[in-house]
C-alpha cells in the first residue's frame, strides 16, 4: 500500500523502514509542498519581478487615467489591464497550488499574447497609441522584461507541473 505510493524522487534518501503511516504522511506533505512550490526557488524571483511590474503598471495607469485620460484612453486602459494581469499572476505565484498554477499559466499566455499584439500594433499603427503603454514596442521602455517575463513564467510553470509527478504513473516502478 505504502510501497505503491512511494515516488521516485531525485534525492531518494536511504529510508530506514519507518512506520508506513508516518511515511505516508511525509509523502502527502511533500506532495503538498511541491504543489505550493511555484512560488519558491526561481519562482520566487518571478514572483518578485511580477510584484514590481504590478506596482509599476497599476500606478502608472492610475496616474495617467486620473490626470490625462483623454490624451490616449486606449493606451492607459491597456496599462491598467496589464497591471491587473500582473497582479493576478503575482497572487497566484504567492498562493501556490495546482489551481493557482493553471490560473497563472492562463494569465502568462494572455500576457504574452498582449505584449506581442500591442507590440505589433504600436509599431504598425502608432496613431492608435499616442502615448506609450507598458507593452508598447514589445516593452522596450522596460528593458523588454514585459516580453521576457511571460516566456520565463510559462517555462517555469510547465516545469513546476512536471516536478509534481502523478502517483499513478509511478505505481509499480518500485521493486
Amino acid at each position: 500500500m505504502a510501497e505503491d505510493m512511494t515516488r521516485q524522487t531525485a534525492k531518494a534518501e536511504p529510508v530506514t523502514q519507518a512506520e508506513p503511516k508516518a511515511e505516508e504522511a511525509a509523502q502527502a506533505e511533500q506532495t503538498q509542498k511541491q504543489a505550493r512550490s511555484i512560488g519558491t526557488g526561481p519562482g520566487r524571483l518571478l514572483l518578485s519581478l511580477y510584484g514590481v511590474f504590478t506596482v509599476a503598471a497599476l500606478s502608472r495607469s492610475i496616474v495617467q487615467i486620473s490626470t490625462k485620460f483623454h490624451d490616449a484612453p486606449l493606451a492607459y486602459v491597456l496599462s491598467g489591464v496589464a497591471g491587473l494581469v500582473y497582479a493576478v499572476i503575482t497572487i497566484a505565484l504567492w498562493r501556490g497550488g495546482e489551481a493557482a498554477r493553471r490560473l497563472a499559466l492562463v494569465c502568462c499566455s494572455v500576457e504574452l499574447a498582449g505584449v506581442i499584439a500591442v507590440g505589433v500594433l504600436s509599431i504598425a499603427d502608432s496613431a492608435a497609441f499616442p502615448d506609450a503603454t507598458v507593452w508598447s514596442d514589445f516593452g522596450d521602455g522596460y528593458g523588454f522584461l514585459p516580453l521576457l517575463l511571460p516566456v520565463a513564467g510559462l517555462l517555469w510553470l510547465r516545469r513546476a507541473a512536471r516536478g509534481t509527478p502523478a502517483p499513478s504513473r509511478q505505481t509499480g516502478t518500485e521493486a
Partner: protein
Amino acid sequence: MLDAVIIIVTVTALLLAAWCGFAAYRDSATKDWHFAGMAVVTLVTLVQLVISLVQLGHGDRPEQGMAVFLAYLLGAACTIPAAAFMSLAERTRWGSAIVAAGGVILAVLELRLHEIWGNGHG
C-alpha cells in the same frame, strides 16, 4: 546636491547587484555581509529621501510633476528592503538573484528620478 546623491545611490545599487549576482552565480544564498550591503544601500536611499524633501521644502519643484517624483522616491527607498525580505524567505541562489534584480531596478528608478527632477536644479 540631489544629482550627487542620485549618482551615489545608482553606483552602490549596481555594486550590490553585481555582488549578489556573483553570489547567485556561485550558487550561494545571501549572507550576513550581503545584508549589511543592503542596509548601506537602503541608508543611502533614505538620505536621498531626506535631501529631496529638504529641497522640496526650499521651493524646488520637479520638472515632471510632484506626485510622480514622490512615487519614485518612495519606490526607490522600498526596493532594497523588499528584496531583502524576499531574500530572507528564499535561502537559495535565487534569493541572491532577487537582490541582484532589486539593485538593477533601483538603478533604473534612479535614472527615472533624475529625468523627473530635471536639469537646472542644484
